[in-house]
């Protein structure tokens, strides 16, 4: 029998849910063909009308965003341009379900191919429309999810969200998904816990799961101790959230009046659409791995992504981390399969090993830098030679852009402090423009406890004196040498860890957007 399994993703809507897993991807549809093309056409027309009718009922109960999404879906369903390819296919001999699926899949592919996050996220809406009609076409009803279920699957349809009674709890855990989807926005506004990007596919979907959408994780087949700890975190979260709302709009200050900078961590440029720049001090960490999701992104795609965030931030700083693939974040065609990936070719090591890929990112960053206050940092630096080599490549690409007369700017180049060698002997990296402590990796390397392994989760604590001592030493070194030091790991947004981090001397934290209010509230409670 297998033990608990912990999966890590990205929080799309903070909160906690404990409940039975419900598989969203189970196939439930079986359409019985009708015989003649006219009958197939009539069946499809009826199904479209039924689907539109159901949406019209839902819209009566919906307000704000929810009503807008439904209105959009009804308008799409009512448009002949959507169904006419399907009718054509029916008269070419196809059954209604296949004809509809093909017509809609072509439409979906168009949205999936968009280079803009907003339009790409609309693919989920069109999939929803497709499935509602398919559901109406098939005679079998849908399998109902139990009350308080945690929906697990590739992606979730907005109508599924509307139809679910969230008053009895429950949450959403997606293998793919996007923090920019309609459902993610709805989940945030309704306070439904949601995690996206869990990646792994589970073989056995049964039993209770613990969804920690504050930190972006889920535990399957939890032990008694895990359930107890989870419930404790959950009730403390509710209490904090109620209190924290009032802190969001104000600058973070401790009880003693010490100002603390609080920036946000983002993964996708569209993440900033849901954040009011006035509530934070900039972007302390913009991950770029997401850009490398399916294919290696070209320079223009990267440039636009970086520029969007820089323009959103205005004169506040945006720290972009060069691609940190490898470890638990494989990228097809880029990363290599290794026996021990966390200690292998990841982060800056991989970028230096694949200069042709790295140089594309460097050029995009140099060009984007003119659009705001950009800082760039390298992940997984272990020795100064890596920093020098990466900085050298920046200088080379800058020279190339200059000769071509392309507008660009050299940003300050800093490093992530996450490999223990640097945390122990930071003086070796004194030439870096700034330090950003990556507490997740630093903790797992110092404690030799993987952060995605539930069996050693009790060892993976940023508050162990060994980890805190390193953080304090790096911070003190930065103060002496005038090197700005910040922290961008999950600990920065964890109210339980914030007092220790401030006591260690840190005055600059970067947290997940969903944790912004609670982090500020926790800072206000500290007396340093």
């Amino acid at each position, binding site marked *: 029998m297998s033990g608990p399994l912990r999966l890590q993703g990205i929080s799309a809507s903070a909160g906690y849910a404990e409940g039975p897993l419900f598989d969203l991807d189970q196939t439930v549809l079986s359409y019985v063909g009708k015989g003649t093309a006219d009958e197939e056409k009539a069946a499809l027309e009826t199904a479209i009308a039924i689907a539109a009718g159901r949406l019209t009922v839902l819209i009566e109960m919906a307000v704000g965003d929810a009503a*807008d999404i439904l*209105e*959009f879906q009804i*308008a799409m369903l009512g*448009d002949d*341009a959507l169904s006419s390819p399907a009718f054509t296919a029916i008269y070419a001999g196809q059954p209604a379900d296949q004809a509809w699926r093909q017509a809609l899949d072509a439409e979906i592919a*168009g949205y999936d191919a968009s280079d803009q996050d907003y339009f790409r996220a609309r693919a989920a809406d069109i999939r929803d429309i497709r499935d509602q009609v398919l559901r109406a076409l098939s005679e079998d009803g849908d399998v109902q999810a139990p009350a308080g279920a945690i929906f697990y699957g590739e992606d979730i349809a907005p109508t599924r969200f509307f139809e679910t009674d969230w008053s009895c709890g429950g949450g959403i855990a997606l293998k793919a998904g996007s923090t920019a989807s309609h459902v993610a926005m709805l989940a945030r506004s309704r306070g439904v816990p949601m995690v996206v990007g869990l990646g792994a596919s589970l073989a056995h979907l049964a039993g209770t799961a613990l969804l920690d959408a504050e930190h972006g994780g889920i535990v399957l087949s939890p032990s008694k101790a895990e359930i107890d700890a989870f419930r404790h975190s959950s009730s403390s979260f509710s209490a904090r959230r109620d209190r924290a709302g009032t802190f969001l709009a104000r600058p973070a200050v401790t009880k003693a009046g010490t100002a603390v900078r609080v920036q946000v961590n983002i993964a996708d440029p569209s993440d900033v*659409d849901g954040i009011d720049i006035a509530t934070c001090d900039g972007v302390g960490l913009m991950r770029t791995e997401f850009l490398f999701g399916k294919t290696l992104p070209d320079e223009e795609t990267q440039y636009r992504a970086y520029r969007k965030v820089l323009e959103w931030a205005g004169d506040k700083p945006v720290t972009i981390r060069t691609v940190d693939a490898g470890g638990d974040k494989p990228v097809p065609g880029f990363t290599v399969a290794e026996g021990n990936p966390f200690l292998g070719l990841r982060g800056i090591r991989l970028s230096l090993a694949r200069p042709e890929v790295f140089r594309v990112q460097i050029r995009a960053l140099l060009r984007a830098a003119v659009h705001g206050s950009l800082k760039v940092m390298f992940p997984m630096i272990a020795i100064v030679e890596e920093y020098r080599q990466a900085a050298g490549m920046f200088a080379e690409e800058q020279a190339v852009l200059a000769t071509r007369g392309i507008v660009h700017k050299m940003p300050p180049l800093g490093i992530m402090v996450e490999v223990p060698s640097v945390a122990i002997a930071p003086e070796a990296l004194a030439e870096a423009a700034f330090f950003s402590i990556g507490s997740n990796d630093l903790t797992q390397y110092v404690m030799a406890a993987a952060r995605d392994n539930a069996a050693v989760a009790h060892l993976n604590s940023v508050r162990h004196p060994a980890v805190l001592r390193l953080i304090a030493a790096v911070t003190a070194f930065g103060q002496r040498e005038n090197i700005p030091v910040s922290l961008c790991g999950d600990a920065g947004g964890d109210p339980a860890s914030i007092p220790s981090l401030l006591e260690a001397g840190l005055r600059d934290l970067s947290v997940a957007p969903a944790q912004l209010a609670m982090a500020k509230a926790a800072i206000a409670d500290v007396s340093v």
Partner: protein
Amino acid sequence: MSASAEATVVITHDVGLHARPSVKFTKLAKTFAAEVEIALAANGPWFDAKSIVKVMATKAPKGTVLHIRASGDGADDAVDALVELVRRDFDEGADHVRTA
């Protein structure tokens, strides 16, 4: 009597001609008898401005110069009204932008 009209307008909405603005745009277009079309370039291709499927499929981002043309009854009024709607940012305040 038949007429025709054509105009251009820049989309200033933060995420472009997206779901909610598209609904408003097509609804307004449908109130006119004239045939109304949009394009992202002066030489087309042109798309039916009364079809939300076609309008959304243009995936026009912020900054796009939208070409609007109409022919038939009330063509001038149709183009004027649609240009005005885009110019008014689809009657959405900035606070709505991020939730759509």
